[in-house]
């Protein structure tokens, strides 16, 4: 009896707070998850049937036709391949380069360190703008080449700060003990530092990978070669076309009798762009949370 009386009572206030809290949380859950769920449902439904409306929670006429026409279309398929390639190559380059540069900068006794850091910080806040950047890419022959996807993104101040704060957390004794054994800085970096840097690799890889996977801007403006278009760019193009209402109507009529339509292909392409992220990000949570915390402290 005594124990029960001591327990904190569930008051009217608790009850009210709980209601408000669950409403907020419920609304947030619904508005963030439903658009993706709905798109998935639409991408799995017969396009002609979708046009009749009324599908919200479950496909009425199941079909994988949209997916098979996506993978059967050379343009989409190639866009997907380019995106996969740039995500892998770009992420590897960014991770390796960032780790190397930041390891150099992490040495507090590094001569000119302040100057280097000043250059990095200034470059975060000021830039020459798009046109001079474009002219630069043109003059070093990066335009219209796969390299424009993976080279200019190899280093960013944000990644350097993430890496620096990680290296700061590594005890200095590790490097010193390596030095006492006569190892050079390069050997210490490869043999001692890299093997314990998995969390850092994961953090940079997720930010860089997502950026590469979603990229469309460079594909739209720095590349003319149709074979180098990324999935993000192709999506942007289709969505821009869809934004014109009259086209939409005409397209709908032209597709009569088909299991797929420009809409269903578009939704399918969106799902294909979202699904890999959807599958990966929950598992990498703890890594990008570190990244966010550092990003917000260092700017």
């Amino acid at each position: 009896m005594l124990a029960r009386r001591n327990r904190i009572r569930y008051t009217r206030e608790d009850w009210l707070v709980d209601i408000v809290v669950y409403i907020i949380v419920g609304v947030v859950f619904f508005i963030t998850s439903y658009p993706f769920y709905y798109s998935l449902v639409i991408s799995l439904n017969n396009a002609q049937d979708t046009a009749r409306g009324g599908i919200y929670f479950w496909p009425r006429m199941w079909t994988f036709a949209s997916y098979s026409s996506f993978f059967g279309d050379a343009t989409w398929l190639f866009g997907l391949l380019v995106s996969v390639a740039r995500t892998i190559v770009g992420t590897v380059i960014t991770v390796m380069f960032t780790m190397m540069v930041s390891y150099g900068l992490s040495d507090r006794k590094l001569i000119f360190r302040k100057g280097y850091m000043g250059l990095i910080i200034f470059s975060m806040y000021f830039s020459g703008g798009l046109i001079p950047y474009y002219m630069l890419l043109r003059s070093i022959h990066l335009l219209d080449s796969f390299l424009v996807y993976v080279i200019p993104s190899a280093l960013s101040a944000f990644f350097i700060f993430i890496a620096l704060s990680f290296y700061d957390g590594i005890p200095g004794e590790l490097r010193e003990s390596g030095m006492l054994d006569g190892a050079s800085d390069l050997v210490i970096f490869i043999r001692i530092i890299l093997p314990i840097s998995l969390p850092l690799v994961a953090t940079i890889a997720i930010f860089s990978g997502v950026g590469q996977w979603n990229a469309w801007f460079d594909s739209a403006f720095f590349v003319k070669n149709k074979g180098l278009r990324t999935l993000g760019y192709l999506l942007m193009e289709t969505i821009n076309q869809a934004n014109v209402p009259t086209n939409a109507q005409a397209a709908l009529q032209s597709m009569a009798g088909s299991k797929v339509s420009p809409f269903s292909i578009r939704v399918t392409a969106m799902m294909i762009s979202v699904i890999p992220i959807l599958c990966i990000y929950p598992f990498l949570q703890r890594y990008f949370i570190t990244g966010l915390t550092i990003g917000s402290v260092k700017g």
Partner: protein
Amino acid sequence: MTGSAMGGRKPSLPQRLWRQRTMQLFALAGVAFLLIFSYAPMTGLLMAFKDFRFEKGFSGIFTADWVGLKWIREFVMDYNFSQLLRNTIVISVLKMICTFPVPILLAIAINEVKVSPVKRVVQTVSYLPYFISWVVVSGLCIQFLSSTGVVNTAMIKLGWIAKPLNLLSGKQYFWGLAVFTGIWKEMGWWSIIFLAAITSVDQAMYEAATIDGAGRLGRIRYITFPSIAPTVTVVLILALGNLLGGGLGGSTFEQSFLLGNTANRETSEIIQTYSFRMGMSKGRYSYATSIGMLQSIISVLLVFSSNAVAKRVSGRGLF
């Protein structure tokens, strides 16, 4: 030992550099990269004061004729100028005011959920949109907000409206659209950082407050709020520094570029997209560069002044 062999003499600069040659090379590789990809384009800003011709290539930036402030004057005189300035300021400020409190409220709400699986699921789902590109977001907007989209269909069925609203092309809707999509995409992401601040609060404080008779609202007000205030300040400064970029509401440029169209240009065109169109589509390189430079200077001023304010208010700045 090498140290004693040197007799305590301080090694010369070249000696010290040689000893740390690997680390220097690592750092210099990064500096070289920045010189090429960040600092070389900065020299291109000269274009803003010159009559640059594309055919001359990068070196043409240096050989072109000086025209002084011609382009900046032209921009200010442009019949679009006041509209562009209005859109840029209104969208930035609206996004700042509306998007900033949402992640804080969301973090507090998530923290008040006592069923931990619910808590985890909601949190994880809420920041999914952060990882999705603005391209996909604009695709979802078409799916949901077009005249035949889910939102209009639902509102008609519920009898709220008689005919569909042109949410995507109506110029009266764009600002709301920018704010809403900004909140939708970023609230979960920023709530992570506030939630991290809340969870680091000592639980004993809550227990003490409960014993002193504080209800849940009281605990939120007198313990949760004050404990996350420093984090709120830091994030606010960050957001203010990035006011023109979009604050906590995602990239305003991408929003205006992807969700803007000829029908809503009157409210959706901002300085950045205008500069972009002038440069990349119309080929007016010098003009576009000078507009971009103006914006860039304003941004830098915002960053440094918000940092200075931060130093005064909280005793520490970001750099």
